[in-house]
């Protein structure tokens, strides 16, 4: 009995030390709470119905870096999406990778947000106060089936049947019909956007941004290390996250053995919509090490049942703004918390600066 106690005591101490060490692994790291955090000078974006999450994540990573260096001018995610897709020869801005956008910005510069807005303003007004996303989507819809063997392409276009645009774009469609010849000149939506942005001279001062690095098909441990290292250095991390995690945190599209995309889990359950978002903080919640994920779905984005963090109008950062007693005190939701285990099982690609 005495011998058992003799063995058990050091064993318990060792196990205890192990748990202390584990707790230290999840030391709080937060890029939001400081009063000088670049996130305080950046809007929470709403990418709306555009497929530009990758550019929203990339532009915010770069903007965060630039604000830290004292810059105030923000890069427009919509412009970043167009510039990258145009330079890579794509027809439209639909889907892409954050790394490609950062590399493109480094090489080709950017057009300041205010100039982007000036370029798009008249078009959005002609269309009946369209959002950026609706305008881009309209052009993408308009030129989707245009090619050299389809001269009557315009007769086939019916944007009013588009579930997202509805009848909203009728004024712009009428404008197109009236000026068919000028619109026929362009072959793709990226070409017409090129003409819209033609007066914008890109500012090429981004060469000093660190080269983006991508980690995919990596083990959970590697992904975790890259996220932690980046947060510790004081930079947000872009990840491609399976959206199902928002409604089902126990969904496991990936495991240590299956790191490739993981569009379906072992049981063949429903696939994922991979969505580029930013990881901006880490802390222990209950027994779990958790990460804060910043989205581009608007300032009120807060999935049910998940703890989310916010900036209050008073200027304070609050790590738990779920079920607020006074909703109007919230300025914006800056992210929602997911446990390490849940997040890594739903993270396909990690991009760091």
């Amino acid at each position, binding site marked *: 009995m005495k011998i058992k106690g003799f063995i058990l005591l050091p064993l318990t101490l060792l196990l205890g030390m192990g748990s202390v060490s584990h707790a230290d692994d999840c030391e709080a790291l937060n890029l939001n709470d400081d009063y000088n955090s670049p996130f305080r000078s950046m*809007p929470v974006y709403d990418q709306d119905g555009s497929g530009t999450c990758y550019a929203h994540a990339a532009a915010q990573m770069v903007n965060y870096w630039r604000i830290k260096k004292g810059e105030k001018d923000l890069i427009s995610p919509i412009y970043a999406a167009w510039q990258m897709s145009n330079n890579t020869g794509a027809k439209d801005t639909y889907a892409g990778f954050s790394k490609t956008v950062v590399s493109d910005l480094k090489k080709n510069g950017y057009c300041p947000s205010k100039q982007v807005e000036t370029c798009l303003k008249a078009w959005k007004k002609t269309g009946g106060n369209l*959002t950026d996303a609706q305008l881009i989507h309209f052009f993408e819809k308009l030129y989707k089936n245009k090619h050299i063997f389809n001269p009557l392409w315009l007769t086939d276009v019916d944007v009013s049947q588009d579930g*997202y645009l*509805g009848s909203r774009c009728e004024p712009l469609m009428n404008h197109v019909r009236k000026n068919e010849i000028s619109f026929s000149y362009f072959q793709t939506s990226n070409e017409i956007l090129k003409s819209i942005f033609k007066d914008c001279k890109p500012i090429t001062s981004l060469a000093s941004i660190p080269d983006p690095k991508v980690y995919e098909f990596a083990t959970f441990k590697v992904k975790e290390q890259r996220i932690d290292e980046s947060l510790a250095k004081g930079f947000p991390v872009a990840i491609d996250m399976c959206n199902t995690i928002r*409604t089902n945190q126990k969904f496991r599209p990936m495991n240590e053995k299956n790191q490739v995309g993981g569009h379906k889990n072992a049981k063949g359950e429903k696939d994922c919509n991979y969505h580029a978002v930013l990881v901006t903080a880490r802390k222990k919640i209950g027994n779990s090490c958790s990460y804060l994920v910043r989205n581009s779905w608007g*300032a009120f984005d807060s*999935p049910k049942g998940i703890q989310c963090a916010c900036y209050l109008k008073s200027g304070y950062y609050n790590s738990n703004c779920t079920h607020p007693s006074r909703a109007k005190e919230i300025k*914006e939701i800056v992210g929602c918390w997911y446990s390490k285990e849940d997040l890594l099982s739903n993270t396909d690609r990690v991009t760091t600066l």
Partner: protein
Amino acid sequence: MKVLFFSLLALSSIHAANKKIPGCGDQSFFVVEGKKIEFCWLPKIEAWVSIHCVQKKKPDCKALTLYQSLLKPVVVMESEELNGGKNPGSVLCGKIGGTLQYAILEGGSQQTFCSAADGSLIDSNALSNAYYAGEKIKK
């Protein structure tokens, strides 16, 4: 006398602006498409809706009807409709016959609202929460 009258008038208008509407967990103004509109926070569904949705004078609020329609299994959103990380709230708004309206909040953050045929508004994130809550019920 005039000073007293105008002071009372100013006080009463401040009181009217801060008047608490029963049913609202909170009230706030947002600038949507350039117009300053008052909203009510409905804690039960965790959504910002146009203030008239909870006022007795106009109880019929189509924005809440849009919200409720998503709880039924009628609306289906295919996985590929969200490719590129589209905001499901924006996609759903178009699908259920609403019109998206854009707000720039204090500090420059962005938020979309879904406008119903009667002009009432609901924040589009609430639509997405309703859809996924409805999806769970369907299962």
